[in-house]
């Protein structure tokens, strides 16, 4: 049976305020630290979280800047799962151009989802595209320190 040191989870409403975003981010990263995840894991999770919540506010809540998005997280000793849901109309992640193509390299946008996919173990959107769930699997001992 898991005890308090083996897992942590929560659901938080977050407004587009830097202090609120940092509070939940630091809470999740603090749990990773407590569970002995390597620093590379913290880097990956912070990067993916920042990209995901930025997208939720910038695109999902463009027309509703005062409304909160919902962040749900669950961390145990093997993996981290974070879901971010906004109240926007959603989007089709399949239509985002590949930012690594030569013709897109000097475009200053369009890399967020690609970075999330690169640093997370699994990424899924709900059918309407306004809820992103991402999972990070802890690397084997001795790697990614």
């Amino acid at each position, binding site marked *: 049976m898991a005890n308090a040191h083996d897992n942590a989870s929560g659901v938080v409403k977050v407004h587009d305020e830097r202090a609120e975003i940092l509070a939940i981010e630091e809470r999740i990263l603090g749990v990773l630290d407590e569970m002995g995840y390597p620093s590379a894991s913290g880097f990956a999770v912070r990067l993916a979280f920042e990209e995901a919540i930025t997208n939720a506010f910038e695109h999902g809540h463009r027309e509703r800047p005062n409304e909160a998005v919902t962040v749900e997280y669950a961390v145990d000793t093997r993996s981290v799962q974070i879901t971010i849901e906004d109240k926007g109309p959603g989007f089709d992640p399949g239509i985002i151009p590949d930012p*690594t193509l030569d013709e897109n390299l000097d475009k200053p946008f369009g890399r*967020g989802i*690609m970075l999330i996919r*690169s640093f997370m173990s699994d990424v899924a959107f709900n059918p309407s595209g306004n809820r992103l769930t991402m999972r990070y699997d802890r690397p084997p001992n001795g790697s990614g320190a």
Partner: protein
Amino acid sequence: MAGDSRLRIREADGVTQVEFVDRNILDEANIQAIGEEIGSIIEGAPEPKLVISFSNVDHLSSAALGALITINNKVRAKSGALRLSNIDPQIYEVFMITRLNKIFEIHDSTEQAVESLA
């Protein structure tokens, strides 16, 4: 405004050296301010030569990468030169994944970056 700057800027031998004050370049408002401040340096130079050091930086976002690309485009439009330096290995991985290491000239140290502009 100078008191609000998130940058340390120094001029030497015709090269503008820029360092970030913050360890994390994630906040949209800060990124916009950084882009505007460096943009004004570029506008003020006939043929800008810039070295941007990441020696203090632990994290950056895709919006920060976007700001760097915009800076690079502005520098190229004025036939100037931009070098990046002191990039942490984890951040360098971000440049590799996005293939932005192909459009930026990246050096291990500021000294090497400045020498490359001589």
